């Protein structure tokens, strides 16, 4: 990396956040809502990318972390009368606990076994949401009360069903996740994670306890995914089993692959492109998941580095 790259990278990220802030004043209502959704989903993808892109661990079960946040916030708000902040914290905490538990078990394996173990855990969680349908209402899900989604802070009250509040909270979540990711991958810890990705044995030889670093990475990744899930529940008020299903484990993988594995902005690019691709194609056919399948095969065959990864390779080498 050339000197001066650091400054440029930070400026670029701030510019992206500023651009997203500005966009809310020009977008039509339909795209306005879509972009709020995309920013929350991109935060989920950023969490996924920390594990896949910067630690080299491919999980096929990240939906369980997203769902832990979603249900952690949704159930506590619905049944225990938690507010917005405490519900969000509950979601975050359940994501963290799940990530550490899963990590302690699953990180004993690597490669293909790790993928299958995470897949199995996620499937167990998904089935769990169906099994506890007395509270979760399974596939149907439940809708949070509008009353529970009001939140007053310092005398100003926010209503999370209002588009403006929704957009800016989604932006806040996205900005925090993006900057955290940038800080993490530029820190000493981040360097060790990248070393694990590149060559784990050599990292062990250098004296690093790689298991701890991998656990940390999974914990951060899972908690970030849970934060996205909790925000999703609070902003869009719907909580259902679909979000825990296999499909929602594949989505972040696809977004990250499309945007660029191991690039900080890739998740946003991938999530936005894929969201609109699915949105447009579902106007023509009910088989919109076909797009997902075709995109996965094409990406893995011809563009395994994704959009930003290819740009970084060809032109802009300082892209983090």
């Amino acid at each position, binding site marked *: 990396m050339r000197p001066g790259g650091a400054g440029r990278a930070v400026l670029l990220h701030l510019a992206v956040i500023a651009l997203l802030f500005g966009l809310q004043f020009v977008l039509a209502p339909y795209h306005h809502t879509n972009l709020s959704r995309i920013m929350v989903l991109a935060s989920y993808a950023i969490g996924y990318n920390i594990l896949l892109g910067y630690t080299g661990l491919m999980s096929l079960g990240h939906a369980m972390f997203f769902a832990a946040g979603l249900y952690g916030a949704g159930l506590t708000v619905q049944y225990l009368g938690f507010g917005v902040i405490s519900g969000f914290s509950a979601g975050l905490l359940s994501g963290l606990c799940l990530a550490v538990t899963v990590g302690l078990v*699953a990180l004993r394996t690597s490669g293909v076994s790790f993928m299958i173990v995470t897949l*199995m855990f996620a499937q167990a969680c998904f089935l769990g949401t169906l*099994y506890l349908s007395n509270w979760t209402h399974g596939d149907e899900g439940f809708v949070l009360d509008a009353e529970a989604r009001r939140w007053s802070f310092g005398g100003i009250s926010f209503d999370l069903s209002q588009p403006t509040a929704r957009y800016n909270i989604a932006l806040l979540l996205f900005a925090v996740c993006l900057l955290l990711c940038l800080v993490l991958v530029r820190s000493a810890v981040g360097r060790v994670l990248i070393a694990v990705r590149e060559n784990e044995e050599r990292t062990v030889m250098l004296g690093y306890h790689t298991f701890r670093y991998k656990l940390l990475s999974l914990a951060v990744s899972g908690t970030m995914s849970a934060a996205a899930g909790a925000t999703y529940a609070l902003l869009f008020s719907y909580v259902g089993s679909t979000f825990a299903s296999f499909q929602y484990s594949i989505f972040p993988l696809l977004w990250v692959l499309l945007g660029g594995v191991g690039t900080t902005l890739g998740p946003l690019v991938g999530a936005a492109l894929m969201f609109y691709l699915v949105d447009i194609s579902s106007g023509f056919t009910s088989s919109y*998941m076909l797009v997902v399948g075709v995109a996965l095969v094409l990406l893995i065959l011809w563009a395994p580095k994704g959009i930003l990864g290819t740009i970084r390779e060809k032109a802009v080498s300082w892209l983090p």
Partner: protein
Amino acid sequence: MSFGPHLFLALLEGTVSAFVLALTALGLSIVFGVMRVVNVAHGEFFMLGAVLAWAFSSLIPGMPAAGFALALVGSPIVVGAIAISADRLVLRRLNYGPEATIVATIGLLYIIQQVVLMTYGPDARPVQPPINFRIVFPWFGYSGYKLVVVAASAVLLAATWYVMMRTRLGLVMRATQFDRETAQAFGIPVDRVYSLTFALGAALACIAGVLIVPIQQAHYLMGLDPLLLSFIVVIVGGLGSLRGTVMAAFVIGISEGVISVFFSPTLAKIIATLFVALVLVLRPGGLFGEKSR
């Protein structure tokens, strides 16, 4: 019905599902063993078998037996051809890298599933069983066709074993599994062996789908359950071990049948998936598997 006959019924149901499961899982196991490819699209080949069985049998209306026979021959050929082209067009270009092929087969899963949704539609459709007789026990009557399924699966399992262990093709496949590069150095056309292996694995799942469709209707989402169960079986049996796979299929198939008669099937599945995750972590060679090399 009292406990004894109830248990007997559960065991019968478990045996039927165990044989079908053994067939499906054997396909997955052969593909993983020889090619080291985790085929996430395996369940979709099962689903294709069921859907094609419906398509073939509706070609000959009024004669369920003839339609079924046609399906039994035609469906594996079609599915085998699809599998060979998937291997040539996608998997081979990825050089069979383990993680890349998983992503690619997930893509394949959605492509097959959604193309079936577009052409066949979202409805579940029944297929007439080729034979109609009931075996009457003192406590309940039982569909004779289910016993045909058991017999046919047993014959196919034996045939697969024969091909793998007693024919030249099987020898070549086992040689490739043992050491791909040395096999290639000895003039074995590894590329062609891989294509055939992938087709054989897919065809086994497909036949299982054909056999099951008179019992369970054909639906475009029916591939997920057999996929997960096959994963469980192959992992518990030891990755790549055919004997372990078949043994595990019987243990899991029968116990799943019995457990889901007496307990909630969802709870049984939760326990099974968690159990498998732990097996993979603690005993990567599987419960019945040999020590890995």
